[in-house]
């Protein structure tokens, strides 16, 4: 039943999974810092610059630089969340109150199992994607699992048994349902485009989408409208400004997590940023060519382990830029009113996505017919 090979394989997978979780959680923690720093710079402030580990501050120039950048702030924040008193208000539904943060975090971390982040060349020179599980229908898996993320917010809002969290939860579920449609529809033209006859690529596989962009145009250039709709829907799905209806701290106190404190609040916080990290990675993979160099230019790096590392770094650089873009938008735009959000989703984005789909269906059919 349990042969050593099997156990070794499971162990290896578990090890890689922990590695990946570590990477994404670290990125989530540092995007919190990035949010604070970038918002500070945009507002003429300096942001967190006091936290420092013992001894590091004595390093002549570098130590002061790190301190000024606030590199150690996420550590302090995490510790603070860990050591805070866990307060459970008396009026909440205890079981669901405790369940909600877990339900919020799990989907955010599960989506990354199918995220490819680079390629590796085996001894035959073939490209093998670096990912935890190469699922044929990876992008659908991501859509499915991220659609479960709304339960965390809804449960938190409902179990808090208090009006502002409840409003936040209701808004969030309505918003998620509305923008999921536009998001899915904006991806359909991509699937059509990638799985063109003769290419042997499958449009639903993230790896194949990335490979279709190597040495040719990025899909963001081929289908700018799809990219725009997907980006807007991504902002809505990750609850970022200008769509941060569930939180909207100015009109709902803190939204769905008003009644949460301590580590449970921390989990919500990290889940939100994990969503942003994963969302940026997905946008990079689908529209910005993943780990490939530039549109129409072949990867200049060699096809060996050096190329693998440069590819991963290039992919991370694009993802980090997108995270920066998320933050940049947040500190630029004001929040939509709730009815405007619904209006935009149903009467603008959805018809636009449908028209976009129709256009590309006709285009792809015409290209198919003319090539025959």
């Amino acid at each position: 039943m349990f042969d050593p090979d099997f156990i070794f394989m499971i162990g290896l997978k578990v090890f890689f999974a922990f590695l990946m979780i570590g990477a994404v959680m670290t990125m989530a923690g540092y995007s919190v810092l990035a949010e604070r720093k970038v918002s500070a710079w945009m507002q003429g402030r300096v942001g967190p610059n006091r936290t420092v580990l013992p001894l590091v501050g004595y390093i002549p120039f570098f130590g002061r630089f790190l301190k000024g950048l606030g590199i150690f702030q996420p550590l302090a924040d995490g510790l603070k969340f860990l050591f805070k008193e866990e307060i459970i208000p008396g009026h909440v539904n205890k079981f669901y109150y405790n369940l909600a943060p877990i339900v919020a975090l799990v989907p955010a971390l599960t989506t990354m199992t199918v995220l490819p982040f680079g390629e590796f060349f085996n001894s035959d020179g073939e490209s093998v994607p670096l990912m935890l599980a190469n699922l044929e229908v990876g992008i659908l898996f991501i859509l499915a699992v991220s659609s479960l993320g709304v339960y965390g917010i809804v449960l938190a809002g409902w179990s808090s048994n208090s009006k502002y969290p409840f409003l936040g939860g209701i808004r969030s579920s309505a918003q998620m349902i509305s923008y999921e449609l536009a998001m899915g529809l904006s991806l359909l033209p991509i699937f059509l485009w990638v799985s063109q006859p003769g290419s042997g690529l499958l449009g639903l596989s993230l790896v194949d989408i990335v490979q279709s962009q190597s040495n040719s145009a990025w899909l963001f250039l081929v289908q700018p409208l799809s990219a725009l709709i997907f980006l807007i829907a991504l902002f809505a799905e990750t609850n970022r400004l200008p769509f941060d209806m569930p939180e909207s701290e100015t009109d709902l106190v803190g939204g769905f997590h008003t009644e949460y404190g301590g580590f449970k609040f921390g989990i919500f916080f990290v889940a939100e940023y994990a969503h942003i990290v994963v969302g940026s990675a997905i946008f990079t993979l689908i529209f910005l060519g993943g780990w490939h160099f530039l549109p129409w230019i072949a990867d200049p790096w060699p096809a060996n382990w050096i190329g693998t590392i440069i590819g991963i770094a290039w992919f991370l650089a694009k993802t980090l830029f997108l995270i920066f873009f998320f933050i940049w938008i947040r500190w630029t735009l004001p929040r939509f009113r709730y009815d405007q959000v619904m209006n935009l989703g149903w009467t603008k984005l959805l018809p636009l996505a449908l028209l976009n789909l129709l256009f590309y269906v006709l285009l792809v059919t015409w290209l198919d017919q003319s090539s025959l």
Partner: protein
Amino acid sequence: MAKTVVLERKPLSLSERTYLPQIATGLKTTFSNMFKEKVTLQYPEEKPAIPKNYRGIPTLVKDPNGREKCVSCQLCEFVCPPKAIRITPGSVPEGETDRAHVEKAPQEFEINMLRCIYCGYCQEVCPEEAIFLQDEYSSSGYSREEMINNKEKLYELGGTLPDAHYKWDKKKNEEDLGNDH
């Protein structure tokens, strides 16, 4: 009579209705702001410049000769709206001859900083120019007792201020000349 003109708002063009050019402009603004000079003051290390007429903590001052200026007239105690000042009058110590015509000096002078409202009436009313609200603004303590400034503390905070009149020196001079009244 002012004439009211109702301005018709121009209908938005297509590019304006998509919001996208406006969003791009906004992004440009915030991005250029990132590289501007920061206005933050690193507080405990850098302190802001205090203006001259600033009303900070009330303090007692000495004249440039190191003499206590307060004559314990208790006007400040009477005028103080929240009753933060309490003075126990006493006599000028024996042997201090250069304070002619001064009969009293405060034996104890207490300002309760938990009550003080920084109104500056004490400074205004003082006939001897002995009490000043200076530029010190941060005062803290671990207990209520610590927040009551006694005479020593008040002189320590106040220090010495330049004096324009040297009233006592003039009086002593007059007395020496026999113009005592």
